[in-house]
C-alpha cells in the first residue's frame, strides 16, 4: 500500500442534484456525504448547454465549453454540406484563386457522402486539452476511471479505464494496455458489470416493466462496487497526484425511478412501488458507503471534490419534435417507419439508426438524437439539391425558432422554453459542428426523434430528466468549512483541481478559480498561479501535426482531381 495518497480526488456523481442529496442527508440516508458537506464547502454547479453527460463532463475536464471542445452529444454528426465548406476553406487556405474550381472539386469529393450521418463521439473529437493531459505533461500522474468520451484512451502518465465502452472491447481501450491484466486479477472483475455501454445508455431513459426495476437498481449497486474495487486498487497501488472516478448510477436511477426517489411526487403506493422506493434508498445508502471508503483510501491529506455534470428533475411530457417538423412541412419520414407506441425517445441502437428514419430528399431539418435536443438543418449545396438554400438559411432558422416557441401540449402548456441558435449556445471555433438549433423544453425533458401519432403527449409516468444545476462539494486540507455557497460554473472545477495538484491554471481556460471554496490562509501561502496556454494533445489526432496531415489528405484528393497544383 502506498504511503502517499493523491493530492486531489475527483469523485463524479453523474446527475446528482442537491434536491435529492440534501434530503437524503437530512433523513440520515447518506451520513458520510453530510459529514463531507459540513466539513467543507458546497455550491450548486451550473452546467453547460446541453446538460448532457458527454458535453458536460468534457467541459469539466477541459475547463472550456462545447463551442471550444467540440463535444455536443454522445454522437458526432457530419453534414455533407458542412464538410464541403470545410474542404473549400482548406483549399482556399492552400492558395487557390479559382473559386468555381474549388467548389466543383469539393463537391466531387463529397459526392459519395450521405446527406447527414453520425457516429459515436470519441476522444479524438475533443478539440481541447484535458486535465489528464495538462497534468501528465507537467509530471503529474493521473488515474481516470469511468469518464465518458475516453475512447481511444489518452496516453497519460498513469491509468485510464474509460466509461461508456462496450464491455466486449474493454481490453482494447484500457491504458496502459497491461492494466487490463491487472483488472482481470481483481476478485470482483466482471467487464459486463463494470462498463455501461452506449446502447444500454439509450435504454436507460425508457420506461421499465414492473418486474425489471429490482434488477436495474441492483445492477447499478454492483457497478458502483466494481468501480470501487478498481479505485481501491489504484489508490493502494498507483501513486497518483490526481485520481478521478465517476459513479454514474445516480443518473441511471433518477431517469427511471425519479418518482420513487423524489418523494414529493407520490404518496400512496402499491406494494411493488414501495419495494422500489426501498431499493432506491438502499442504493444511496450503499453509494454513501462507497464514497466514504474511497475518501478513506485516499487519506486525510487528499483534497476531495465531489461533482456532478448536471442536475435532475421530473418530466411529464414527451415532444416528438420530428412529428411536429413533419406536420409543418419540414420533414418526410422514410418509407416504412413505424409509429412509436412505447413513449420512447429514440431507436434502440443509438449509434446508427436515426438518420435512416428520414427521406433526406424531402427533409430540410430533423432531430437526429434525443440527448442534445438539437435540430440539424439540411443546407443545399446547389439549387438542384434538396434542402434549404444557403441564402435562406437565416430566415429559415428564425422562422422555425418562432414557431417552435408556440408549440403547446394537450394540457395547453407551452412545450418549448427556449430555442438557441448555435452561435448563441456554442460560441467558439467548434460551433460549426453543433446542431443549428438547440431546444430547451419547458420541463427540461428530452425530445423523441421517433414517429408518433401526435407531436406532444403526456407521459404515463413521471420520469427524471437532466436539469442545468448539478452539485459541487469540496473538503479536505485547505478547503474552507463555508457550507453552501453561491453558484459555481462547471468550468470553474478544472482550475480548482489544477491548483490542488500544484499546477498553474492555463490562461486560456474559460472558468474562474473558485477561491471562495478555499481557506484564506491556504490561498495566502499557496496562491493560484496563471500559466501558459493549454497545448494540443499528444495522442489525439486533433493535434497540429495530425490536423495538418488531414489537410494534406484533402489536398491530395483535390490534387488528384486536378484542382490543386
Amino acid at each position: 500500500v502506498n504511503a502517499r495518497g493523491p493530492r486531489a480526488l475527483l469523485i463524479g456523481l453523474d446527475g446528482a442534484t442537491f434536491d435529492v442529496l440534501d434530503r437524503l442527508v437530512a433523513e440520515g440516508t447518506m451520513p458520510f456525504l453530510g459529514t463531507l458537506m459540513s466539513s467543507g464547502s458546497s455550491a450548486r454547479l451550473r452546467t453547460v448547454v446541453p446538460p448532457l453527460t458527454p458535453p458536460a463532463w468534457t467541459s469539466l475536464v477541459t475547463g472550456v465549453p462545447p463551442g471550444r471542445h467540440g463535444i455536443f452529444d454522445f454522437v458526432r454528426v457530419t453534414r455533407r454540406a458542412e464538410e464541403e465548406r470545410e474542404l473549400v476553406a482548406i483549399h482556399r487556405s492552400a492558395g487557390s484563386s479559382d473559386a468555381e474550381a474549388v467548389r466543383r472539386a469539393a463537391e466531387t469529393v463529397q459526392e459519395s457522402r450521405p446527406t447527414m450521418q453520425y457516429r459515436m463521439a470519441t476522444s479524438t473529437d475533443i478539440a481541447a486539452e484535458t486535465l489528464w493531459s495538462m497534468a501528465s505533461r507537467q509530471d503529474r500522474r493521473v488515474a481516470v476511471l469511468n469518464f465518458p468520451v475516453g475512447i481511444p484512451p489518452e496516453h497519460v502518465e498513469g491509468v485510464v479505464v474509460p466509461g461508456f465502452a462496450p464491455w466486449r472491447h474493454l481490453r482494447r481501450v484500457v491504458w496502459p494496455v497491461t492494466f487490463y491484466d491487472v483488472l482481470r486479477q481483481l476478485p470482483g472483475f466482471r467487464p459486463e458489470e463494470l462498463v455501461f455501454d452506449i446502447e444500454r445508455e439509450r435504454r436507460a431513459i425508457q420506461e421499465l416493466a414492473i418486474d425489471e426495476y429490482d434488477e436495474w437498481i441492483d445492477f447499478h449497486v454492483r457497478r458502483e462496487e466494481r468501480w470501487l474495487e478498481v479505485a481501491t486498487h489504484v489508490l493502494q497501488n498507483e501513486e497518483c497526484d490526481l485520481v478521478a472516478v465517476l459513479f454514474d448510477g445516480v443518473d441511471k436511477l433518477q431517469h427511471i425511478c425519479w418518482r420513487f426517489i423524489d418523494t414529493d411526487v407520490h404518496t400512496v403506493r402499491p406494494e411493488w412501488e414501495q419495494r422500489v422506493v426501498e431499493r432506491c434508498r438502499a442504493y444511496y445508502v450503499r453509494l454513501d458507503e462507497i464514497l466514504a471508503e474511497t475518501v478513506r483510501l485516499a487519506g486525510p491529506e487528499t483534497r476531495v471534490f465531489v461533482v456532478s455534470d448536471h442536475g435532475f428533475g421530473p418530466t411529464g411530457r414527451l415532444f416528438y419534435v420530428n412529428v411536429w417538423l413533419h406536420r409543418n412541412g419540414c420533414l418526410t419520414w422514410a418509407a416504412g417507419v413505424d409509429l412509436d407506441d412505447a413513449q420512447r425517445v429514440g431507436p434502440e441502437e443509438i449509434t446508427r439508426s436515426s438518420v435512416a428514419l428520414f427521406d433526406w430528399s424531402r427533409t430540410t431539418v430533423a432531430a437526429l438524437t434525443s440527448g442534445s435536443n438539437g435540430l440539424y438543418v439540411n443546407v443545399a449545396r446547389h439549387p438542384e439539391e434538396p434542402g434549404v438554400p444557403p441564402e435562406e438559411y437565416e430566415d429559415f432558422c428564425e422562422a422555425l425558432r418562432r414557431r417552435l416557441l408556440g408549440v403547446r401540449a394537450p394540457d395547453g402548456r407551452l412545450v418549448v422554453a427556449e430555442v438557441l441558435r448555435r452561435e448563441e449556445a456554442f460560441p467558439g471555433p467548434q460551433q460549426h459542428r453543433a446542431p443549428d438549433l438547440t431546444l430547451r423544453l419547458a420541463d427540461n425533458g428530452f425530445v423523441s426523434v421517433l414517429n408518433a401519432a401526435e407531436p406532444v403527449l403526456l407521459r404515463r409516468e413521471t420520469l427524471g430528466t437532466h436539469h442545468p444545476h448539478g452539485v459541487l462539494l469540496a473538503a479536505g486540507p485547505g478547503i474552507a468549512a463555508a457550507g453552501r455557497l453561491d453558484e459555481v460554473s462547471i468550468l470553474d472545477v478544472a482550475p480548482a483541481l489544477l491548483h490542488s495538484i500544484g499546477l498553474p491554471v492555463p490562461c486560456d481556460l474559460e472558468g474562474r478559480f473558485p477561491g471562495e471554496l478555499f481557506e484564506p490562509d491556504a490561498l495566502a501561502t499557496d496562491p493560484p498561479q496563471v500559466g501558459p496556454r493549454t497545448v494540443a494533445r499528444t495522442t489525439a489526432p486533433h493535434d497540429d501535426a495530425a490536423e495538418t496531415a488531414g489537410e494534406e489528405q484533402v489536398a491530395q484528393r483535390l490534387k488528384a482531381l486536378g484542382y490543386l497544383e
Partner: protein
Amino acid sequence: MDTRPESRQHEIRQEITRILREMTADWELDLPDGIRGSTGLITDLGCESIDIVMFIVAIEERFGRKGLPFESLLMNDDRYVGELTVDDVTGFLARELP
C-alpha cells in the same frame, strides 16, 4: 517497399484481419476457417453497430488517420448497408489511404 496496388491491398487486409482478431479474441466465435476476405462483420462475427464503431476507432488508430469517410462504406443512398465484409473494408481503405 513494394508499392504495387495488389501488395498494398494485401498489407491492408492483413492489418484489418489482425484488428478483427484482437477485437474478437474474447468473443468465443465459431469460425473454422478464421477471418478471411469474405468474412462478414455482421453475420459471421456478430458485430452490432457499436462494434462497428469500435472497429472504425481501431482502424483510425492503427493507420494513424482520422476522419476517413467511413459513411460512404457504411451507407448507400442514405441507408445503412446490411453487411460489410473484410474485402469491402480493404477496398475502401485501399482507395482512401494515401
